[in-house]
């Protein structure tokens, strides 16, 4: 894949239109890497002039902050901001709502001011600008959409992901808890990195049950962590043959046989 880094761009005297912030999950997690690649394919298809930080990218500090470690968060934030500002980054797109939220809302006060998009917003923008076409390849297919907390409640982004899912021609089935009342997948607030406290159920299993109730064939989402949690939930219920979990970027890339 042709994925230029900011350093390479700079050495050619170029500065890209947008920085793709890949995030830790998107960089290292096998499942999330597929989402990263799918999104890059879409960027290529739409001829977006983009770059990544590559080995210069580091954790945004979101998980550390939500775990209560404000020190580590601000250390990460301040050194990331130094790098971003040295490349004079203006626009960032993230495939992870946690990076999106942190970069967009928590970095400005520390000196990092950027226009930050979640990839579903960015894809919608590309479609509106006529740079990307979404093929109606999933006509009539039942799809349900799981709202990531940090995209939905956290930042009020409910419609962009739904708008572009609908463009696939799908039959969008809402879960009983959706949009501002959506149930968390269980990963946020650094829960992803620890076992849950004692209880009678795992949150991702409850959320997956709500998704299964819709009889959808696909659970679409826009967060690598939600993706993991929902995928595990489907496995727990042994419904892998009935329902699959996909990121919206993957659905759109596959619709175009990318």
């Amino acid at each position, binding site marked *: 894949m042709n994925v230029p880094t900011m350093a390479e761009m700079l050495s050619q005297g170029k500065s890209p239109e947008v920085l793709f912030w890949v995030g830790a999950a998107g960089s290292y997690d096998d499942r999330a*890497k597929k989402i990263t690649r799918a999104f890059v394919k879409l960027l290529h298809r739409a001829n977006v002039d983009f770059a990544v930080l590559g080995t210069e990218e580091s954790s945004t500090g979101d998980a550390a902050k939500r775990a209560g470690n404000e020190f580590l968060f601000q250390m990460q934030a301040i050194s990331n901001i130094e790098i971003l500002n040295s490349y004079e980054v203006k626009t960032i797109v993230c495939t992870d709502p946690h990076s999106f939220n942190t970069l967009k809302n928590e970095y400005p006060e520390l000196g990092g001011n950027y226009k930050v998009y979640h990839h579903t917003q960015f894809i919608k923008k590309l479609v509106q600008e006529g740079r990307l076409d979404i093929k109606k390849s999933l006509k009539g297919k039942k799809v349900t959409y799981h709202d990531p907390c940090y995209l939905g409640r*956290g930042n009020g982004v409910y419609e962009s992901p739904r708008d572009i899912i609908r463009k696939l021609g799908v039959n969008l089935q809402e879960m009983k808890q959706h949009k501002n009342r959506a149930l968390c997948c269980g990963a946020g607030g650094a829960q992803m990195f620890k076992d849950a406290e004692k209880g009678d159920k795992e949150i991702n299993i409850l959320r997956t049950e709500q998704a299964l109730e819709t009889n959808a064939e696909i659970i679409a989402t826009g967060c690598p962590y939600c993706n993991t949690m929902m995928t595990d939930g489907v496995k727990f219920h042994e419904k892998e043959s009935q329902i699959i979990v996909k990121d919206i970027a993957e659905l759109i890339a596959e619709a175009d046989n990318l």
Partner: protein
Amino acid sequence: MNYIPNISFAIALFIGIGFFVMNVLKLVRNIKLGKAVDRSDRKTQRWKNMARIALGQSKMVSRPIAGFLHVIVYVGFIIINIEVLEIIIDGLFGTHRVFQPLLGNSIYGFLIGTFEILAFLVLVAVIIFWLRRNIVQIKRFMSKEMKGWPKSDGNLILYFEIVLMSLFILMNATDHSFQEAGFGNPISQFVAPWFSEYSLETLSSIEHIAWWAHIIGILIFLNYLYYSKHLHILLAFPNTFFANLQPKGQFNNLSSVTKEVRMMMDPDADPYAMPEEGLEEEIPEKFGASDVTDLNWVQLLNAYTCTECGRCTSSCPANMTGKELSPRAIMMKTRDRLEEVGRNIDTNKGAFKDDGKQLLNDYITPEELWACTSCNACVEECPIDIDPLSIIMDMRRFLVMEQSAAPQELNMMMTNIENNGAPWQYNQQDRLNWKDE
């Protein structure tokens, strides 16, 4: 002329309002024990939110049954209280229905008639509320934190309302001349026949007793607020006004930490620098919150405002899956501790005396705090914009930054971020490998 009733009324009013003012002052003092936080920006937006959410009850109706019933009680409560104005004037000056001749029978009748209908609707709504709390066994009213006083508190408020509304109807029903006039008695006219056997004198005594019981009841209820979850009828207004206006996903950056981090990362900083001569060495600020006085005043206002409806808890993913965490309990425990600190200050003549207790551990356990997914469902659900999540986060900060007491797995995650810029143990040099896989 006999002025005893007027004087007794004035005394009752003075005592009732006096105690209330005293309690409000104590309330304000306790809230001010919180740390400073600036919520003086975007005034227009704040007024709008207060009008929409507190006055307009816009978030209540997201649960239609409870929301609809609540709007009835709320509208009834506000409108019927206009009548209290007449009661106070009558009581102080010994008049009887002073507004009747002033407004004329038709307008006065229309007003009192409206109050009567509202009083009846409030009665019905309150009885349904009681059934929901006690018979229907709605889950959010059955939780662990709702046993004992919180349950009695909820019911007491309903009994108060039943008694006050009944007295209002009874007072009108036994007012012979009011019933004779036949204006404004759409409900009390059906109660009046129950007393048709009584002499006019007895009727008049019953009316007087009902009138007195009604106003004394109102004054007692007013003073009950301070001890009750019912404070929300007042505090919902400032609470929605001062609520956080930033996106819910945004958590505050601790400025005390920024200072230290900038110093640590400044290549020109002298690590062996001594504090300048003459300057007091600054006591490092405590990071995060372990007691109510570490929280900010809006968080403390939140605690007093919470009416324990439990919408937050019923939408909390941790609570729904049987974890210890209940956002409602976080608010209730914060208030309990704050009241304890307040009483401590009262008994120690204005200065807090260390009681060996704090909010953390003595009220809220780390297990509760670590169960939170920071999903903001509780914040979204709260009909009056209370933010339990911010308290949870501040207490986590204390656990991690002051006590290094994070769960072991989170310590590993944080070590990884420190060493290789990712929550997992991958080499930062492999960060771009995905492009060639």
